[in-house]
């Protein structure tokens, strides 16, 4: 069955979209939520497990205090109220990636609730209201064996690695976001980008969407335009890049409208996003109408953060995003438009780190929003995932400033970085990209060019300095572009004066 998709602009003629975003953030604590196992990414399978996170009979959980602190800091940064008293509950359901067959999670008593995050889209500010931020634990990682695609359907059997089981997660849930109209996809993306910036500024997670340390579920519903009600929503799971968030919202808006305008009903269901096609497909229907049989986790005691603790944590918060943007704009001397573009691309922290590594702000902006943005777009990934670090960008810019490479050669240096050929300096050396400013070699090339173009040389001698361009071109060609054009010009004028 193929979906009927209504063009985006037409959707808005008849419907108002409502968004809801659920973002899971994996904390960067040294140990898991309920045991002392390490949380390092990429360790060999089942090497970071203990009786507790493996769900062995008799083992018991103990809450990681640092994780609670991180959860509260996230809550405070999102302008939430911090609970005076809250508990963990058991969410009971069977799944082989869950060692106890229940997930220890917060249910009706989240650690933080009722907050907001302001996000900017094209100079317009939207206030996204936060319903709750709660603590829970991650599941193990399953690999499906057999079947054509490595996907779950058609697999012969599956292999489970529990290293990830028990890693602390914070789930941040928005209230329904309405009134965004045509900007719904952008607001969704901007919210996730802003949340990501905030998480990074708090230093509580590396928030890498491609590694799954930040995961996003997108809820969307449409209501008849102007009706003010909420329609039936779908939940699109695991939308794992900023770009995909925008695309998923756009796709679901078109699909919902197609269903509704065709006289159908939107099914309340879970859907999956496909990066390759930008489309969603329905998940498998659950046989047992989700009855998670929540009850308070009897092996853990309540959390009752003192107000002193909460206030002490408040003093550790990074500056609020709006203030930060204002400060950075002043520091960097960016125009409003430049600032907006940088923020919308999720590049503020990247630029900040690049500047901190020694690059001039405009140069940092230029690289991230041109060369690297192009690369991200080609790969269909976020800027953070292009495979180049802010420190490397600053290093490339240093080579430009020193005259070692020009902008054109710098792009070749980036290509070397994408290919993992080493540091920028190493790439320049290995690829022989350095601009030649050695006067001996240049001088010989200039002499050769003069000898080969006597007419042009005469014109210059007659004072027609503009004609030097032709000779410069000849020299650059001879030097395969690796000459400092300014120095070539100087030499030509010197020799012909």
């Amino acid at each position, binding site marked *: 069955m193929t979906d009927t998709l209504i063009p985006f602009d037409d959707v808005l003629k008849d419907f108002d979209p409502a968004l809801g975003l659920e973002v899971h953030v994996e904390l960067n604590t040294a140990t898991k939520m309920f045991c002392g*196992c390490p949380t390092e990414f990429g360790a060999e399978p*089942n090497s970071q497990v203990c009786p507790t996170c493996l769900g062995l009979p008799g083992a018991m959980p103990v809450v990681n205090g640092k994780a609670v602190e991180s959860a509260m800091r996230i809550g405070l940064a999102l302008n939430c109220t911090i609970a005076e008293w809250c508990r963990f509950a058991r969410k009971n359901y069977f799944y082989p990636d869950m060692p106890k067959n229940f997930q220890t999670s917060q249910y009706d008593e989240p650690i933080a609730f009722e907050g907001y995050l302001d996000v900017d889209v094209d100079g317009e500010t939207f206030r996204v209201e936060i319903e709750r931020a709660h603590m829970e634990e991650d599941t193990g990682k399953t690999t*499906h064996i057999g079947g054509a695609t490595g996907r*779950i359907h058609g697999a012969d059997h599956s292999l489970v*690695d529990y290293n990830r089981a028990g890693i602390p997660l914070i789930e941040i849930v928005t209230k329904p976001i309405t009134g965004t109209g045509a900007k719904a996809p952008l607001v969704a993306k901007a919210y996730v980008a802003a949340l990501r910036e905030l998480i990074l500024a708090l230093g509580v997670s590396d928030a890498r969407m491609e590694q799954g340390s930040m995961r996003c579920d997108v809820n969307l519903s449409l209501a008849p335009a102007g009706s003010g009600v909420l329609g039936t929503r779908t939940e699109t799971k695991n939308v794992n890049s900023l770009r995909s968030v925008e695309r998923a919202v756009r796709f679901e808006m078109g699909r919902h409208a197609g269903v509704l305008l065709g006289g159908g009903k939107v099914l309340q269901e879970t859907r999956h996003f496909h990066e390759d096609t930008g489309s969603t497909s329905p998940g498998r229907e659950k046989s047992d109408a989700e009855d998670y049989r929540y009850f308070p986790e009897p092996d853990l005691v309540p959390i009752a953060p003192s107000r002193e603790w909460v206030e002490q944590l408040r003093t550790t918060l990074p500056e609020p995003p709006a203030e930060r943007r204002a400060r950075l704009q002043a520091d960097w001397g960016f125009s409003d438009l430049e600032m907006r573009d940088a923020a919308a691309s999720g590049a503020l922290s990247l630029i900040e780190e690049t500047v901190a590594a020694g690059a001039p702000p405009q140069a940092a902006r230029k690289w991230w929003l041109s060369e690297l943005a192009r690369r991200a777009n080609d790969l269909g990934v976020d800027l953070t995932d292009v495979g180049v670090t802010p420190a490397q960008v600053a290093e490339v810019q240093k080579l430009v400033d020193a005259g070692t490479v020009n902008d054109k050669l710098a792009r070749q240096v980036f290509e070397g970085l994408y290919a993992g050929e080493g540091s920028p300096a190493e790439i320049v050396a290995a690829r022989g990209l350095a601009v030649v400013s050695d006067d001996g070699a240049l001088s010989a090339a200039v002499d050769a060019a003069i000898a080969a173009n006597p007419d042009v040389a005469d014109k210059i001698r007659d004072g027609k300095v503009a004609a030097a361009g032709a000779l410069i071109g000849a020299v650059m060609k001879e030097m395969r572009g690796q000459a400092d054009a300014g120095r070539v010009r100087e030499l030509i004028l010197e020799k012909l004066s």
Partner: protein
Amino acid sequence: MPEITRDEVAHLADLARIDLDDAELDHLAPQLNVILESVASIQGVAGDDVPPTSHPLPLTNVFRDDVVRPCLTPEQALAAAPEVEEQRFSVPRILGDEQ
């Protein structure tokens, strides 16, 4: 006092992942009703003014420092596994969605 029907027992067994056969269902359903009847007496005993007790002792804020403790070795972790492949627990094909 609602009676648990045989179908309801079958649904509960499904939720609890126990493959009860017909004979077991026939045997269990009436027993469960006898038990439920005997516990039904508590309904309405405590009103809204009575707070629930989930922990017998009023402890709060028991936390652990974020310090790594020794893990099991993969050999220990996998020692009791019914099936192992590539240092992972091998499980039969999974119905349902990726979580």
